[in-house]
């Protein structure tokens, strides 16, 4: 009698959600790719990160971004301090180091975590988030250096 219940004959709602999930993951990658363009892609980078977070929430993936954010915060504090001593080249070297470190942390997190729901386009979400993060960092560094050069010229 159990199989005659009306609920058993309905298609599982998960499949429709999964289609949406895959589409969102692909869109996250496209937005991330556009967000990697420094300055011009700022809006798209924000959207890619937002989409990445939403997809992670939907699949129940416990993503820890404290390490990535902490690295970025430490870098910008250090960069501001270095710019006070006119060390532009050191800031650029640190920026390359930051990108590498963030990439490594993201890759480690990608390998470590396991989503509760299977998402065949999961790698695209991580690529999108990584590219968006790289674009955001690049834009922030350009704005920081631009501001610094303006303040220096203004002071002189």
């Amino acid at each position, binding site marked *: 009698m159990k199989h005659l219940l009306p609920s058993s004959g309905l298609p599982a709602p998960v499949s429709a959600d999964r289609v949406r999930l895959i*589409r969102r993951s692909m869109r996250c990658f496209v937005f991330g790719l556009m967000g990697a363009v420094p*300055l*011009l892609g*700022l*809006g*798209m980078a924000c959207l890619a990160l937002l989409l990445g977070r939403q997809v992670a929430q939907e699949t129940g993936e416990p993503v820890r971004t404290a390490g990535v954010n902490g690295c970025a915060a430490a870098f910008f504090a250090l960069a501001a301090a270095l710019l006070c001593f006119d060390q532009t080249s050191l800031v650029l070297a640190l920026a390359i180091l930051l990108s590498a470190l963030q990439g490594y942390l993201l890759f480690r997190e990608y390998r470590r975590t396991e989503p509760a729901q299977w998402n065949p386009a999961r790698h695209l979400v991580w690529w999108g988030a990584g590219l968006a993060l790289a674009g955001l960092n690049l834009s922030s560094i350009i704005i920081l250096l*631009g*501001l610094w050069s*303006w303040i220096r010229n*203004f002071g002189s």
Partner: protein
Amino acid sequence: MNFLPIAHLELRRAARRPMTYYARCLAGLLAFSTGLAFVFAGFNRTMSAASAGRAAFGLLAGAAYVLLAAQAILLTCDCLSLEKREGTLGLLFLTDLNGFDIVAGKLAARISLSFYCLMAAFPAFGFCLILGGVGLGDLVMVALGLLNTLFFFATLGILISACVWRERAATTWGGLALLLLGVLLPILGLILNSTAFLALIPAGAMLAAPSLAAGIGSPPNVAASLLIPHALGWLFIGAASGLVPRSWTPAANINPARRAIATRQSRTPPHHPTPWVTEPAKPLLTTALLIIICAAILAGALLAGPSWLAVQWGQVALLTILLLHSVLKYQAASQAGRMLAGQRRSGELELLLTTPYGEAGVLRGCLLGLKRGLFWPTLFALGVDLALLLFGWWKAWFGNGQAWAAMVVAEVVWLLVNLYSLSWVGLFLGLKLANPARAASQAIFYVVLLPWLLAMAFAALAALLAGGRFGPDLGLPGAGMLVISLVFCNSLFTGWAVNELRDNFRSWAAHS
């Protein structure tokens, strides 16, 4: 005081909207940051204190005039026609309310947001008094002029709303009235140096203020420029009160010519269902409007004389380009906002989604309809841009006209980017809000106005950091921040709209 129940109901509705509170905070913050930046400039001797005061006063008064006029007419132009379409206006006449009560109640409720924004921003005008160059008389005259502007354009919007039935006609007539009475007539009055023109419009009272009248040959009479627009406002209220009881039934608004066109269109087989289901685009109307604007500016410039035109041609050309582009952007937002809003309200969208076309097909159809509606007007505007670009280059003997050419090309690129963004954002907001006027105004705010407000806030912050020293040093970072904020807002809101439309189209369509 029989209009109070209507005003009470509308004010309660407005009190539940978060925008009511955000708008006044934003208006106050912007006015204060601008005023403060000029105070720093004045006290740091970058400019003389008096000239800083006059510049701040002119900037604040001009910005307040434009925003108040646009807000007043766009908020009121569809308020009565919306009730007529939904059939709730007839119910009000079952009570002991008359036409004047309904019109006055609607007016009181609709202008409250603009009035609060003005009240929040007005203390910033006090900075100009501290700096000097501006007297108490200027302040009083500008305050009266701004209040008069609010009243005049709100009553005009109510009259338009009482006359029309459909939201498309309401927003089109509202936009036209704003363009004609708020922009073209003051410009013509200033070009022709005519006090008669300026006395007819509420901007005249502001231009009569001594600090703003310095650049005008013959300032308008204060009493006339205050009384004539005010009297016109009461006339509009009277006309609207008389019209409302006669025009609330659908039978009173049937146009035989329109019915004939609709019947003919319904016989033609549809190429794609969505542009067929939505209201047909009217590219000819928009193109005609663009031609009228060009002709009005050309006539004004020729009336001013060839010697004046030879000196001021750059400003006239720039004004023409900006006006044409603004009309196109408004049309894009308005048409996109209207496409899905009406379908969602009438339930046609849910029916359309049951066909094999699906969400992607409906979206493709909407974009097709927008392209059909905007292709010829955009082509006309681009043709005018090209002609003005070549004319400007020729005037500079092709050697020194690169700056002019670069500016026109940048503006054209910006127009095309904005049209694309406005189409997506307008479509999404129309679907989400199911209110075409609100969708169009929000799309314009997010895509066109917000980047400039962000850039202004950055400029004010930079001026504060620099100790109020304005100068060429601020030019490059200011331009950079402007470009970044323009691109940021456009890409962010376009991406957001695309994302929501692709993900939640069915949910929004079925949302009540």
